[in-house]
């Protein structure tokens, strides 16, 4: 029984071994198949041996235990051995197979991957190349590539067309093929330098092409491989003529603008007025340089300040005109009305004229629609004011003087007529034409007559003086004999001198020629001097003398009277200067006689003066030119 079980087990194991072989065979896929076959042959032999043995035993029906057992044992253990072999075999192959398979698969994948990457890389490279080409071709700049020997490798269309060739033709050429030697030398040198140094260089060059000036900007850079070795040169150049022109134009315009700005600034700065640009709040944005003068030379930051702060630093008076005028001015300004304002600035001690003008909309800053600024012009009108004041005063004085003159003239004329009547009336009565008069009546009438004479003289003198002063005195200048005048005067005055018991002596120089003068006026001067001499002399004599001196006739009227005090000498010839009023009035003087005499003599281009000492008489001199000086 045991044998049967073992045989059965052997058979089962055998079958199982067979399957394992089979599976191994499948696994081997034809490789090392011979080994398998040997194993299989062994198996079959063992099996057959076992089977034969088994059959033999079964046939004999005898059980040879030892043999049977041996056979079955052999069979069994052979089967087991085969099984183990098969299993080992199988396992080994399976493992190897698996490794192989895995390797194979991964290898396959790897290979695939590598292939794909390579393709991708290639495609990418192709794309890049294409892009690069496209880029280079489409660059507006001129592009070229050279190798380290400065030989062209490629260039773009722009570069080629500039050299009038096809891009392909450039390969293998050098600069010497296209440019003059000098230029090519320079390029070659540049290239070598860049290749040697490995740096990038940029240069701007100027050419003359077809008579036009062309500016080119060139960038050259060294091309390097992965190991940082120079392999060539990449060049990029573009025409910057337009840019240059634009730059030049810009520079020109900037210069023009700058010049215009400077011109305008210096114009504004040289205006003597203080000009301020002011915003609606009254804050200053800008001023011209006059502000320095107004601030006593201090350069101040004007921006943002108010006029009041600027001109009255430290002043806290909020009622200052510079503060108060602004709101009103701005209000007017917003209605388009410019304002003017004038004030006396107590702090600056100046009269200031302020003009406020709206700024034209065109000058508005960006984004502003309406004028928010005003121009305020401050002018120091102090001098003008003073001048105006002076003019006004002068004008007033002139008017006053004119009025006085008219008044004098009018009054004098109006006085003359009634005076003439009074005088004539007195004369008629005195002469007895209105019947006889007694002594007392005569005395009184004499006094009246004397006073009318005095009044008459005063009026005449006043009129004369006024005429002289206003330049209306007319002179009738003709050839006259001064000695004749002296004698006439003596004749006229002798009665007066006699009345006072004075001698009136005349000493004339006969050699004096006729000279040109207004006889009436000189008689007037003469009479005035002699009259004064008689008036102020109580005893002694009056002497009149004439003599010829260098080109002048010298007339001297000398008296032995009271004389003139030194302090009075200066005002002697001034109008209305009576030296001793009370005494002079008694003498019937007008205070104008000497002033008129002086004017008359001056009008004749002569001189008049006096010499005297108090108590020792006085000497009056005047000269007249012998030959009238012309011009």
């Amino acid at each position: 029984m045991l044998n049967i079980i073992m045989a059965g087990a052997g058979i089962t194991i055998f079958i199982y071994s067979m399957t394992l072989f089979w599976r191994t065979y499948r696994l081997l896929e034809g490789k090392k198949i011979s080994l398998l076959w040997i194993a299989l042959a062994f198996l079959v032999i063992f099996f057959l041996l076992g089977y034969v043995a088994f059959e033999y035993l079964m046939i004999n029906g005898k059980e040879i235990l030892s043999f049977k057992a041996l056979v079955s044992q052999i069979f069994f253990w052979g089967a087991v051995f085969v099984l183990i072999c098969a299993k080992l075999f199988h396992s080994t192959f399976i493992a190897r197979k698996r490794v192989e398979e895995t390797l194979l698969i991964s290898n396959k994948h790897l290979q695939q991957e590598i292939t794909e990457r390579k393709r991708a890389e290639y495609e990418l490279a192709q794309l890049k190349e294409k892009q690069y080409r496209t880029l280079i071709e489409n660059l507006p700049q001129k592009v070229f590539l050279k190798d380290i020997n400065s030989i062209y490798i490629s260039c773009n269309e722009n570069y080629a067309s500039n050299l009038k060739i096809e891009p392909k033709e450039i390969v293998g050429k050098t600069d010497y093929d296209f440019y003059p030697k000098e230029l090519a030398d320079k390029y070659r040198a540049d290239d070598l330098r860049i290749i040697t140094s490995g740096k990038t260089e940029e240069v701007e060059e100027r050419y003359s092409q077809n008579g036009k000036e062309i500016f080119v900007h060139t960038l050259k850079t060294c091309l390097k491989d992965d190991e940082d070795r120079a392999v060539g040169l990449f060049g990029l150049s573009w025409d910057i003529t337009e840019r240059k022109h634009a730059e030049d134009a810009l520079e020109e315009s900037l210069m023009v603008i700058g010049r215009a700005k400077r011109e305008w600034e210096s114009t504004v700065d040289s205006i003597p007025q203080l000009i301020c640009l002011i915003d609606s709040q009254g804050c200053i944005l800008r001023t011209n340089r006059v502000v320095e003068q107004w601030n006593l030379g201090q350069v101040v930051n004007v921006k943002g300040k108010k006029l009041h702060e600027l001109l009255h630093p430290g002043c806290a008076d909020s009622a200052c005109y510079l503060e108060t005028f602004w709101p009103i001015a701005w209000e007017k300004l917003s209605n388009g009305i410019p304002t003017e304002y004038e004030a006396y600035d107590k702090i600056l001690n100046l009269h200031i004229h302020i003009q406020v003008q709206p700024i034209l909309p065109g000058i508005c800053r960006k984004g502003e629609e309406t004028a928010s600024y005003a121009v305020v012009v401050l002018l120091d009108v102090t001098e003008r004011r003073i001048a105006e004041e002076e003019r006004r005063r002068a004008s007033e004085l002139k008017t006053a003087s004119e009025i006085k003159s008219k008044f004098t003239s009018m009054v004098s004329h109006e006085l003359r007529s009634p005076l003439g009547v009074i005088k004539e009336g007195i004369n008629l009565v005195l002469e007895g034409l209105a019947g006889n008069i007694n002594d007392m009546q005569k005395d009184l009438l004499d006094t009246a007559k004397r006073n009318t004479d005095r009044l008459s003289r005063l009026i005449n003198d006043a009129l004369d003086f006024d005429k002289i002063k206003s330049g209306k005195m007319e002179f009738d200048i003709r050839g006259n004999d001064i000695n004749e005048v002296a004698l006439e005067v003596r004749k006229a005055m002798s009665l007066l001198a006699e009345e006072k018991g004075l001698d009136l002596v005349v000493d004339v120089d006969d050699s004096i020629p006729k000279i040109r003068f207004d006889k009436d006026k000189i008689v007037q001067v003469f009479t005035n001097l002699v009259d004064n001499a008689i008036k102020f002399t109580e005893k002694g004599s009056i002497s009149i003398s004439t003599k010829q001196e260098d080109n002048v006739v010298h007339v001297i009227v000398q008296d032995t009277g009271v004389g003139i005090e030194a302090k009075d000498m200066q005002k002697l010839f001034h109008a209305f200067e009576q030296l001793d009023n009370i005494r002079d009035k008694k003498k019937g003087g007008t205070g104008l006689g000497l002033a008129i005499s002086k004017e008359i003599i001056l009008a004749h281009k002569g001189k008049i003066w006096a010499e005297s000492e108090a108590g020792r008489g006085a000497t009056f001199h005047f000269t007249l030119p012998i030959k009238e000086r012309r011009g």
Partner: protein
Amino acid sequence: MEKILIVLIVDDEKDWVQMVSTRLKHEGYQVGVAFDAVQAVTQTISLKPDLVLLDIIMPAGSGVAVLEKLRENIKTFNIPVIVLTGISDKQTQEAAEKLGISGYFVKPVDMDKLIEKLKEVLIKQ
């Protein structure tokens, strides 16, 4: 018989006229008076004076205008005229002298000188 000479005094200042006429009458002249420019002309024509004492400024016209009229009139053109006026400016004097006058006196006048001149002119006549 000696002819009585007639002097016409032309002046708007009546007081003055009175004084002058008194004086002239005393000197033996017959005196006529006129107080304005119109009267001056009419009186000269009617009185036919031997001499006219003529003022310049007066109502109804100036003495120069009167003088002009007298010189234009055949009856009066040769009557001597002495100007006696308050005006002393040269233009007036020249204007009068152009029309022919025998003297020019400015007020206030020295009456003796005036009389002297008057006599001188009348003697010439």
